């Protein structure tokens, strides 16, 4: 249990470090939200200076960071200039949408990758193996941007909903009607994300299984007359689980980055879209907050993977 506590502490420190890094990078660069007001001749330099001091932008970096950290602990995360409100209430629903999308995509990708990878490793050189290799090679070369555009075209041709999260007509409908509509809208972006993740998962699952199947104890188990299927699922799969679980943590980080793009293409109202808008508006805190949320999801993913490893692997528990 002590190791999990240490991991949690480590994750927390990492989060704090990442926040310092992001605020540093963002502040090192010239220009801020009020800079663009200078174009307007009706706003005097003094007004701009007053506004900056009102929002604390003229303070030195440590003070700015301290203010932000305090407000972040309260769940506000600073002030959004463009929305003229605390950043927190704007961020939460967006973060939930991103989580919904990323969660569905993860589920979809693993549901395909796990059985397919095991099958490809079990029957090397078979059509399943060839199909897996082909899929990996093909999807690896197609960036999500291109895949997204092609899926968008497909959606437009078939009349499948592929923009936003809910149809305007259904916004006021009952819960079930609404959920069904959201799921229909979720389908295309989730497929796009999952397809981007699939080659990585598939190739690693297959490699891990192949390595496990080469171990001597598999031969021994077969020698005892245990059926191949049982050996595959009860002996080889648990042995191959370690790298696969670590991969799960890693995949969350990749998913965060690609969902940024997929959300923009399909108009999914998540963090990615918010962040792009915040960048266009030069909305300092909103940019930092969305970066921090993305980072938080990544770190949380790795932490969950660590806990799963702890639960699944007695060797780690013994340490």
């Amino acid at each position, binding site marked *: 249990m002590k190791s999990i506590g240490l991991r949690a502490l480590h994750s927390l420190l990492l989060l704090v470090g990442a926040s310092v890094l992001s605020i540093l990078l*963002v502040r090192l660069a010239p220009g801020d939200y009020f800079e663009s007001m200078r174009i307007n001749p009706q706003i005097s330099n003094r007004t701009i200076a007053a506004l900056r001091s009102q929002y604390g932008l003229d303070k030195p970096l440590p003070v700015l960071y301290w203010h932000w950290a305090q407000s972040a602990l309260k769940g506000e995360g600073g002030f959004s200039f463009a929305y003229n409100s605390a950043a927190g209430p704007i961020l939460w629903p967006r973060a939930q949408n991103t989580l919904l999308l990323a969660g569905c995509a993860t589920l979809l990708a693993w549901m395909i990758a796990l059985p397919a990878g095991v099958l490809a490793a079990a029957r090397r050189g078979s059509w399943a193996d060839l199909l897996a290799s082909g899929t990996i090679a093909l999807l690896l070369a197609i960036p999500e941007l291109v895949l997204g555009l092609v899926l968008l075209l497909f959606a437009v041709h078939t009349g499948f909903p592929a923009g936003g999260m809910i149809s305007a007509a259904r916004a006021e409908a009952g819960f079930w009607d609404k959920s069904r509509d959201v799921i229909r809208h979720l389908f295309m972006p989730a497929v796009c994300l999952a397809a981007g993740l699939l080659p990585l998962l598939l190739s690693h699952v297959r490699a891990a299984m192949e390595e496990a199947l080469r171990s001597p104890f598999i031969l021994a188990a077969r020698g005892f007359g245990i059926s191949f299927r049982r050996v595959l699922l009860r002996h080889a799969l648990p042995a191959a689980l370690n790298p696969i679980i670590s991969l799960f943590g890693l995949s969350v980080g990749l998913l965060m980055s690609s969902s940024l793009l997929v959300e923009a293409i399909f108009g999914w109202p998540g963090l990615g879209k918010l962040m792009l808008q915040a960048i266009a508006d030069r909305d300092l805190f909103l940019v930092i907050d969305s970066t921090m949320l993305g980072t938080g999801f990544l770190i949380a993913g790795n932490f969950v993977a660590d806990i799963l490893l702890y639960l699944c692997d007695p060797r780690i528990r013994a340490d």
Partner: protein
Amino acid sequence: MAFVQSPKLPLVALATVYGIVTMAGFFAPYDYERQNRHTALAPPTRIHFVEPNSRFRLRPFVYRWKLRPGTLHQYEEDHSIAFPLRFFASGRPYKIAALIPSWIHLFGTRPEGNVFLLGTDEYGRDVFSRLLYGGRISLFAGLLAAGISVSLGLAAGVFAGYYGSWIDETIMRAAELFLAVPWLYLLLAVRAFLPLRMDPAGVFLLLIAIAGTIGWARPARLVRGVVLSARNREYVLAAKSFGASDFYILRTHILPQAYSVAMTQARLYIPQYITAEVVLSFFGLGVGEPVPSWGNMLDSLQSLFVLESCWWMYAPAALLVIVLLIFEWFFRAESSRFQAR
């Protein structure tokens, strides 16, 4: 299968692609900003050998596009004048690789005619020419940024692994931080507070610098591992006891071991950074109009009409996939050759 497994063929293919985009001015019949407002979103020009009265001509010729009356974006060929294609035709002046001035283009027609190999975009600009000019930005940005990332990572990793103690500790903690932020978020966060509109050359260099710098952590960690295991090998200790300098040991004994790690990282980074430039420009945060990059060309596809009915506007996407496939082929061949040795 032997030629498929040798890295020579994909290398030649890559050199060809990079060569063509470097000499974009020669291969492109037009420059990237010439607009033809009355032939916006025209489909690719058809190249004919046979006239309407079935007379065969050895020299290929093209017709101009004419807007079908009463429509917005439907074109038909104007059969009244045929424009023969000219090869090595003189046209608008340009510079080869931004250095040597020239005005010879590989092909073209008389100035009144137009040859659009891949149609035109919504301003009536030649997509084929823009594709070549855009490749200059997209392809070189990826290559240079990956180069920066891998060399920075190599330097940091070697430094950390070889000198150890608090240097190692500091560098590795910093690397952990950089790895904790999803890379696209990091890239966007840094890009966010640089001026939105800059001159294209500035943006290009900036993007390369940012993307290259934020990617140092992963190669650094892996290289450090290799260096750590190499540092205390017997032959390194022997060299040390003979009085070899740190630099000598690093160069002859330790860096060669990091080669395959650096190679693997380059394999991951080059496609990732080519894509990153395309994505940033697609978002309007990269290289801006009128200078083309594959990303801001794909931006047109966000309009429903273009997405649905202008297949030639997908050309940058198609070329991107092809280039990424060739890169993958090259690295696969290269790594199998390395393993065989």
